[in-house]
């Protein structure tokens, strides 16, 4: 070893208003498994997009040296041509095509201008053996489990003569067995001289397979640790990932916590499509009046699924579990039931499922409870305007008038509109799913203030966030979630990033 296959030197990438990467360097030795760790939003995916040409040369500064030469990839095809293949978290397979067809999609072996299916099938079987996939190559991809689909993706990479394989969260959607198989496979590739970069949140896996670990935080390289030295443990990685000061990013707040009024018991939900995958397993949590309860967990841990399934069963298939409110069991089967029972859910992705982007501000604000502005069956436009206007003032939504379309607003102000929409329903319990994602620091501070005000009004707040400092700074109590189960409960005074990260990354229950 000792010769670098890939060297990325002081990469800086800016998006309008945000600097996603600043001066990031990454050196990957030939024949290694190199892990990249960091919190959500630390810049891992952006870095890989720069490498694979999704962000083409010229849109970033810095240089990429690959196999001893400087590379300027204009698109993905160029990087694939050089043997760099990236496998994204969302698999890029066509479900209705067979395994063979998927492996050779866009890369079909041809003979006299026709696709040579005989050769393709032959080669597909070879590649499937290589990745340990035992299936009929004519099986449709939608008929095999997600673990095997992952293997098809890898086989597809090998069909392209891969030299550097990049895996983005390869085990996030896999069960334990499939994960273990995949990690073994990576070790096998290493022996064959193939270099891999693996982005992962699962630190135990990283520790187990990686030769070197680069930690990113806030778009910067923190350090690169060589595992061979033996001085690596999860704590050190976690410290690198989260270490930053937490001062004065949150408004001062004195909580005023009442009795438990909301409780979910034995909540079990399965995936909407694959029947054997449980996204929530016997989850139980409580919320007190005036309390801000955090849900900490990594991407894919099942926090959103839990929240949405509680909110009128709007995700997955409900298998069991009860909801109690003010000591009585409530039957919530639809979103309308949930709203009637005083629940509100501010969704993670406000553009895709939180707002109708064709609406203006005033119609968005009243959308979840039109009955409040309906007089004798007729919508009262003046009342709608007044309601929207009062939220514009109290939440300080920056807009000339509430007649403006929501698309004209910045992310932070859009988020305030979504908050207003749910505050308008006068809920007892607000579930906020990543309420500050993609929002600048100033707007975050304001939204923190709003969240605290809601709690002070005697409502319960559930805050789902991937930013640990945010949870620690705001929450009175934090549940950790991993693989669909609540793995722990941490009171405010005990909460520190390392402890949380540990429980988020382990599936053993520490509760």
């Amino acid at each position, binding site marked *: 070893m000792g010769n670098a296959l890939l060297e990325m030197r002081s990469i800086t990438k800016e998006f*309008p*208003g945000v600097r996603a990467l600043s001066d990031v360097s990454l050196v990957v030795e030939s024949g290694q498994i190199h892990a990249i760790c960091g919190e959500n939003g630390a810049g891992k995916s952006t870095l890989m997009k720069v490498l694979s040409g999704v962000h083409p040369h010229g849109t970033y500064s810095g240089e990429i040296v690959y196999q001893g030469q400087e590379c300027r990839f204009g698109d993905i095809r160029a990087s694939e041509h050089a043997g760099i293949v990236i496998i994204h978290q969302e698999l890029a397979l066509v479900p209705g095509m067979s395994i063979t067809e998927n492996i050779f999609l866009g890369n079909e072996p041809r003979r006299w201008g026709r696709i040579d299916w005989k050769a393709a099938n032959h080669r597909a079987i070879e590649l499937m053996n290589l990745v340990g996939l035992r299936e009929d190559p004519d099986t449709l991809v939608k008929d095999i489990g997600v673990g095997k689909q992952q293997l098809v993706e890898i086989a597809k990479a090998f069909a392209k003569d891969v030299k550097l394989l990049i895996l983005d969260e390869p085990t996030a959607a896999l069960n334990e067995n499939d994960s273990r198989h995949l990690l073994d496979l990576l070790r096998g590739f290493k022996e064959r001289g193939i270099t891999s970069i693996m982005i992962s949140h699962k630190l135990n896996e990283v520790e187990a397979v990686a030769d070197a670990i680069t930690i990113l935080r806030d778009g910067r390289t923190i350090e690169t640790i060589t595992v061979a030295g033996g001085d690596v443990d999860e704590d050190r990685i976690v410290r690198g990932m989260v270490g930053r000061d937490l001062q004065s990013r949150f408004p001062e707040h004195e909580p005023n916590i009442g009795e438990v009024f909301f409780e979910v018991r034995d909540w079990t939900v399965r995936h909407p499509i694959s029947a054997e995958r449980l996204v929530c397993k016997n989850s139980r949590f409580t919320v007190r009046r005036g309390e801000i309860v955090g849900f900490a967990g990594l991407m894919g841990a099942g926090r959103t699924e839990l929240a949405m399934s509680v*909110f*009128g069963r*709007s995700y997955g298939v409900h298998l069991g579990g009860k909801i109690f409110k003010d000591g009585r069991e409530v039957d919530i089967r*639809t*979103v*309308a039931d*949930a*709203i009637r029972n005083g629940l509100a*859910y501010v*969704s993670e992705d406000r553009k*895709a*499922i*939180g*707002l*109708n*982007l*064709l*609406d*203006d501000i005033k*119609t968005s604000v009243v*959308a*979840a*409870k*039109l*009955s409040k502005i*309906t007089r004798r*069956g*007729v*919508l009262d*436009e*003046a009342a709608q*305007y*007044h309601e929207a*206007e009062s939220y514009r003032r109290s939440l300080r939504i*920056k*807009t*000339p*008038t*509430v*007649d*403006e*379309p929501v*698309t*004209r*607003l*910045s*992310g*932070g*102000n859009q988020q305030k509109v979504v908050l207003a*929409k749910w505050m308008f329903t006068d809920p007892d319990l607000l579930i906020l799913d990543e309420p500050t994602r993609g929002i*600048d620091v100033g707007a975050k501070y304001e939204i923190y203030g709003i969240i605290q005000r809601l709690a002070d009004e005697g409502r319960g707040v559930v805050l789902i966030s991937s930013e640990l400092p945010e949870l620690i700074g705001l929450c009175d109590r934090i549940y950790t979630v991993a693989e669909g189960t609540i793995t722990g409960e941490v009171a405010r005074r005990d909460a520190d990033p390392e402890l949380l990260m540990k429980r988020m990354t382990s599936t053993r229950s520490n509760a």
Partner: protein
Amino acid sequence: MSRIRDLQKNLFGGTTSNARQFGMIFTLLAIIVYFQIATNGLTLTSGNLIALTQQYAYISILSIGMLMVIVAGHIDLSVGSVAAFVGIVVAKAMQEYDVPWPAGIVLGLAVGALIGAWQGFWVAYIGVPAFIVTLAGMLLFRGGNQYIGNADTVPVPQGFRTIGAGYLPEFGPETGYNNLTLLLGLLLCAAVAWREWQSRRVRSQMEGAEPAPVWISVLRLAIMLGVIVFATLRFAGGRVGTSFPVSGIILAILVIAYSFYTRNTAGGRHIYAVGGNARAAELSGVQLRRVNFLVMTNMGVLAALAGMIFVARSTASGPQDGLSWELDAIAAVFIGGAAVSGGLGTVSGSIVGGLVMAVLNNGLQLIGTGADMVQIIKGLFLLGAVALDVYNKKQGRFSIIGSLTRRFRREDPPAPAAPPAPSPTGSLARK
């Protein structure tokens, strides 16, 4: 510059109107003026206006229902066949079972509701795309029409013909005009004036919202009253025995009722919510399936009504009734500013869109254009209108006028909106 933008924003329908509708009204005016000149004044004669109303009332009724279907994000290809099917059922019932004609109308509406519910069931509860369900319905009910009617025409009784070919009766003193039509015009003027006043009042209650400048209200009122007075005199002053057609009255009532429903009720707003972002609507407590079901059922009822009016006008139900009506209705809705992806569009816009197509068709026929060229011109017009809209959307704007005034916008003082938000243009482009 700001005066023109005020005008654009406020002249028609206040803030909820979208600019394409505004552009389309000018297109309509231009087409009318052009044909008025090209036909030496034939276009705006009493006789032609009355015929135009009777000829296109049923298409416009369809386009009201179609607007709601399209806003919800669906399409209905079956309306022509459904109309024909209901027509033959009603005609047969009256001819062979001596059903009195008012009962026949009720029967027709009920059959339409049933058919709509059938299609709505497949769309909303089974999840078959409306395109497929109504394509099947198109074949199904066309065949049904020919099966029941033995592919023959069935005449309808005199009383029934009123809804398609009837006029407001003569009444009261001899004025040289049809008195009831005059009265109707007068009522309409009063209603328009009242509504203008009312909307200004509501607007002024909203502190902070700038009501439209007075001159705009006055101008808008003057234009609308002028159009109404002119139309009233034309409709009232036709050949003795003719006046404003009954089918036009039915259409007018429906336009008012459905405009109100879509704009001012929770049910109407739910349709827009479903079409704009179905998942967001669902997570806001809107019952997706019910909305989709009702929209399709409603379309069935309106298709039935349109079919009966057509049968009444042509005095008999036949196997070729309603051919390609769905395309006329869909074209009217899209020309009137609805978005192909759903969530946008207005009833009044669709009526204007229908009028544009009707006047174009009528004018071309009056100047003696052959049916071949009429179709070619209509086709190009439809493509052009929607292409312009798509182009505008790609630029992140919804307006024609907006694109014309864009160059001047920079001179405007910056809006008080503070943070340099990512421009809508940019975010759309990135998608």
